[in-house]
């Protein structure tokens, strides 16, 4: 093969490869939204579903009960609910959030 023919075939092969690579890249940029989000940095982090809860505790016997958090709850608040063992008013001892598996 002459030098000219080699250079010609080499250039054509490289050109076709580069063109094909550009087409594939363009396809991903246009149709693959998650890839686009990664490149632009606008991907939203996935947060697991969390449950907010309050723990009610009896100050006398230590009985504990977990219930859903209500607006207005705070740690140290005397709740309307009473202890099933001694009738004392339960106090909120913790407010936190957890994933369902916890």
């Amino acid at each position, binding site marked *: 093969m*002459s*030098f*000219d023919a080699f*250079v*010609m075939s080499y*250039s*054509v092969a*490289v*050109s076709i490869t*580069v063109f094909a690579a550009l087409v594939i890249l363009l396809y991903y940029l246009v149709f693959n939204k998650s890839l686009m*989000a990664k*490149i*632009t*940095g*606008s991907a*939203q*982090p996935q947060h697991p579903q*969390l449950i*907010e809860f309050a723990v009610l505790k009896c*100050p006398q016997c230590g009985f504990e009960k977990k219930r859903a*958090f209500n*607006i*207005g*709850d*705070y*740690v*140290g*608040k005397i709740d309307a609910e009473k202890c099933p063992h001694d009738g004392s008013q339960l106090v909120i*001892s*913790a*407010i*936190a*959030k*957890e994933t369902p598996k*916890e």
Partner: protein
Amino acid sequence: MYILAAFQLLGGGGSSTTEYWIFNLLLFVVYFGIFPFLYEYLQLMRFQMQINGFLQQLSATITNGISQFLGAVNQVMAKDGSTVDSDKVKNELRNLMDLVVIDPTNIETEGLVRKLKYLINMYSDRLEGDVKRMMPNLDKPMVQNMTNAVEVLRNLNYIYKVVDHYYKLSSKYKSYYLLYQLTFMLPFLKEAVNALSGSITSFVKGQPIGDAAGPLTIYRFMNSSCQGKASMDSVVPDTYIGQCIYNQRKIYLVKAQGPGGTVGHLDDAVNYLLETINLKPRLVITIDAALKLEGEKTGTITDGLGVAMGGIGAEKFNIETTVSRHNIPLYAILIKMSEAEALNTMTKQIDDAVNSAVDRLRKIIDTYTSSGDEVLVIGVGNTIGVAQ
């Protein structure tokens, strides 16, 4: 390669030595004259896309935060049967978000900490006062919680403005290196924005955040281990000072006054106890949430020496000054968590860590003090959702 192909198609593919040299020269020009600039230009475009995406996301976060704030205002007002002019509140909120605190001059350092503390107090009072004026029917804890939400929105707004400034400046002058620096900072900024954006919900709902671990440790210790609880009311604004007996030691407990979202004036409380009523504690122990490194586990309890306290440093300086004047050992208990965990509703992991911190506190008191000693324990942090 296209240039080369074109060159050859136009008859440049001859075998003479001159043409061979022209071909090589052309390759040289393409590789060293065009590719480096093309690469830089493509990088510039990529960085611009990344920062633009970040700014759009941040803008949406701020808009969402404002909606959350207005939603909470309407909800609270609806309880009293009163209404609120949403546009007026929105305008006032925008004004508060643009509020600027001007740093005191540091060309003369004399009294700098005093001036900083004065500015911080003034800023808190102004913000709280304006929120109260916006919603006169709110009780104090709710005003404090809403003030915290406004403060978060103000921080987000500030980040947006600064990033936007550098983005526009670098785009204007096509400054590759300025954009490079801004892109390097993006992971840290994203961390901060994620932490702040999630905290608006927690503040509006009045839930304890991770930073409340210090005050919650004080609450749990006081209610589970102590006898003969008593408190010194209204000595220092927004600050709770309590005392109790634990294992024949007299324990003084200091924390911000809950359940509203405030950090209190802990340095004033320490100053009152040591200078005004001449308390002589054997130990001063501070308990605070501390930022963990990526490899560290959330909820790890670490012992420390010194004052565990974040923020601008004015209160820390005052406590260090007062305590060191009396030669009292300063011990610290640190509860490790990420920035996002510190500013968002407390996770169960941190709640469990608070129980471990109470155990560590008992151990430190038992080990390093004797019967009859006095101990001062300070729970550092925002006490939102935690009473005393």
